[in-house]
């Protein structure tokens, strides 16, 4: 549905996008992750035909961004990171305005506006002035706006930015719903845990370069490989058994353990294993042999934040 080949964009001496090559299939919810200034917004603007690339090609829904900009505009919806609204219009007028901009006949507009308002849970504010809406509602209105012409592809730039926890949950539910409707979504966000819950695949970009693109599971595996080379287990010990430092000393001699770090005050031992699939019973046996009494045994979950931190170098532009 979306494919880019060697997409490059420069602002003077600054390279915002550096040969970005990406493929997003139909119906995928693609999380676009990267530090500030990494090139996420530039990518979305180029794909939305708001900006021309300096080099490279891209196709959206089969249309070339260089030749078929008008066709692309009819099949996409772009929601910028900061939603500007016409403060002299009501919610209904605002959506009608964009419906008319997309050439939807006047007779059909009322029904469509009603549907998107219901989907975005804004029906009760239909005749309220746009500037009287809260930030969260304005963000939902932004989503409603990009849905009025029923686009196949949605580009959402930081849709949850500045929202309170409740509004973020509502926004996430809404995006999940859109994904279920079969729309292709490209969502950029800094709230990585939320992307992890709703995205089917992610792309990590830094300094205009795509560091990773693929499924979330693969990202975890890759992050794991780059950082610890294997699983990490956190063992919590009971106080009436052997001390954490004793247990860690014992575990350090076990063949598949790379490193065992003790925290006597907390009574925990963090164990890094060699790469590969392991069953963990040998660890339990070793701890018991060392005199330790196990209160907790928790393989550490790699989160999207960890994957992001491990896959990027943290360099900002």
């Amino acid at each position: 549905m979306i494919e880019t080949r060697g997409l490059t964009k420069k602002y003077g001496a600054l390279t915002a996008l550096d040969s970005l090559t990406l493929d997003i299939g139909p119906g995928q919810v693609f999380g676009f992750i990267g530090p500030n200034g990494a090139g996420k917004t530039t990518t979305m603007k180029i794909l939305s035909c708001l900006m021309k690339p300096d080099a490279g090609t891209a196709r959206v829904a089969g249309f070339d961004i260089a030749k078929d900009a008008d066709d692309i505009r009819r099949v996409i919806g772009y929601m910028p990171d900061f939603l500007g609204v016409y403060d002299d219009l009501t919610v209904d007028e605002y959506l009608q305005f964009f419906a008319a901009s997309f050439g939807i006949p006047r007779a059909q507009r009322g029904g469509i506006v009603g549907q998107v308002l219901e989907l975005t849970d804004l029906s009760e504010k239909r005749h309220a002035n746009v500037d009287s809406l809260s930030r969260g509602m304005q963000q939902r209105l932004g989503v409603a706006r990009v849905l009025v012409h029923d686009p196949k592809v949605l580009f959402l730039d930081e849709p949850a930015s500045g929202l309170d926890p409740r509004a973020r949950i509502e926004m996430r539910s809404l995006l999940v719903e859109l994904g279920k409707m079969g729309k292709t979504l490209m969502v950029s966000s800094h709230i990585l845990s939320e992307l992890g819950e709703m995205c089917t695949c992610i792309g990590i970009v830094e300094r205009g370069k795509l560091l990773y693109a693929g499924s979330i599971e693969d990202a975890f595996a890759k992050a794991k490989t780059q950082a610890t080379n294997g699983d990490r287990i956190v063992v919590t010990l009971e106080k009436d058994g052997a001390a954490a430092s004793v247990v860690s000393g014992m575990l350090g001699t076990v063949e598949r353990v790379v490193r065992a770090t003790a925290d006597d005050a907390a009574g925990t031992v963090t164990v890094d294993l060699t790469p590969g699939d392991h069953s963990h019973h040998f660890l339990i046996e070793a701890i018991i042999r060392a005199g330790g009494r196990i209160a907790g045994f928790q393989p550490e979950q790699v989160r999207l934040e960890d994957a992001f931190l491990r896959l990027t170098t943290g360099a900002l532009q």
Partner: protein
Amino acid sequence: MSPAELRRANRRKIPWTMRFPGPVFSKEVWMLGKRPSTAWLRLVHVVVLLLVVSIVFMSLRDVSGGDGASAGLQRYQQLAPGLTVAVVWVEFVMLGLIAVALAAPAVCEEKQMGTLGTLLTTPLKAWQIVLGKGLGRIVELMVLALVPLPLLLALRSFGGVTAEALATTTATCLVNAVLAVQVGIFVSTVSRRAIGAILLSFILLGVVMFGPMLVVWAVLMIQSVAGGGGGGGGAAPGTGMTVFFVSSAPAMLFLQSFHYFFNESMGAPITMPVRDLWAMHIGYSLVLCVLFFGMSCVALRRVMDREGEGRAQKAEAAVVVAAATPVVAAEAGAEAVPVAALPKSPKRSRRRAPEGVSRTVGDAPVAWRELQQGVLRSRVLSVIAGLMLAGLLLFIYYVAAFEEPVQQVITAVGTAATLIACAVMSTGSIAQERESRTLEALLCTPLSAWDIVWGKFLGSARRASVGLILVLGHVLLSGVGAIPGGAVCRFIDTFLPRIAGRNIDPDWANPIALLHVAMILGSSMAFLLATGILCSARFKKSVIAAVFNIGLMLGLWLGTPLVVFIMTEITFGSSNGLGEFLQNTVMTTNPVVMSVIAVDGAMNVDWSAGGGTSRSLSYDMPGGDWNAVEFTFGMGVVTLLYVVLAWMALRRAAWVIGGPTSRRR
């Protein structure tokens, strides 16, 4: 530590030297100094000054005198008064314009960027913000005022211009520039958009500078009418009113000062010591400065309070609405709150549909929305402004009784005011969309660039049409006496003296003036609106677009005629054919001059005698008289020229918008 002790301790931490002029001043001076727009303003100021001085110098250099150093010095002394007058006028006009351009967006920009709320979190007082912003701009103006200083000193040293003359006139320029800054900042605190603030600042500045003079004039006119002296009474020299009449208006003061210092016969002499007039004017302006400073502080305080309340209210509203949302309410176990119980949005005066009602958007959405916008933000304001204007016109009609000069002045002022409004009105169309971040959403739709530009043009034209309607209404009122064949005119001529109780001989215009003024003003309005949209598309900030478009207007219709007239007089002399042709061409394209000539020419027939046709009308053009057919043809050509130029400007604007987005144009 008690709160009182804490407060005292906190105050001790900030020495008074840091409170005055304060961090806002430092920031403003720094920011203004490094903005490219400020550099452009400086450049324009220098160029205009150089241009005017060069032109005046060239036009005055042909004074008699022999060769040699003493003769040369004598020539300089003869040139000096004229050059001083030119420099002072340029300084007065340019510093006033630049002061408004710098000050009017001062607080509006903070509102638009949302940085005003940040100032709430600091211990800064409203007066510190107003003072800092004002002083920052005054520093910039002082720098600009230094530009002609070497020339003025040379005129003082070699030209014999007195120090008193230089000091008084320069001080008047500076004080008026300071007043313009204060007015601009005050308007900026009460306005939402920078463009509106600029326009309103010019109007308010005109009112405070010339309002008292007009009031005195009106009183004298009424006295004159009541005394049976007929319309057109003037100020009686030497009265207290006359002193105020002169000293309140800087332009009048300049004329009087030039007469006193240089014996330049540019104004009616009033037998008053010019030092007294000057002191009164400075005092009057400074009192106004203090008044506007105080009003700005109060207004800013209220804006900041309202901003704080608005945010809190909005946050509360969001919480309540979230609780009222069925899904969330079910999750939270809360009862749904009826919509009627929700807090209302902050009261706003913008034109919009009544609460709970939405209008149906047209098939051309940009044009639809633009056409919904009112000229002023609220209907009440529009009605008040309309009533005030109508009252003023009726008063003028009453006291001046449709006399020819009054008709011309109203036409000229109406035309000029309409054109200035046009120059500003459309410059926010695209730039404001960019500033409020709505342009991206618009550009994501399949609307063509032409749809957007044309919609913006229609909306601007609709708002600007009020000025056109007023001017045409005046011309219609003037011309109605000629329909049919002078019958109405004769009726009113016999009727008016009875109600006015005096002898009146009104001058009536031929209705053909309606057509001419509509052509002239309509086409030049279209041109300015189109160039405004082009500037708006080209420049990121609406303020820069407005300043550029006003500069274009002044350059085209004020600067170019001046340059052409003086240059042709110097180069060809007064009776050269080519010189006359150039002068004619320039004047024919000047809408203010042409509107006045159109009205003047239409009144060149005694309609009350029942005679006269359009063929007998005579239009006083610079190169000779034109008859009605020639004038209509000439104005038709000019109209066509402006319409074509407007169309080209709109096409270019569409290209500017559509270019980066591969959009249909």
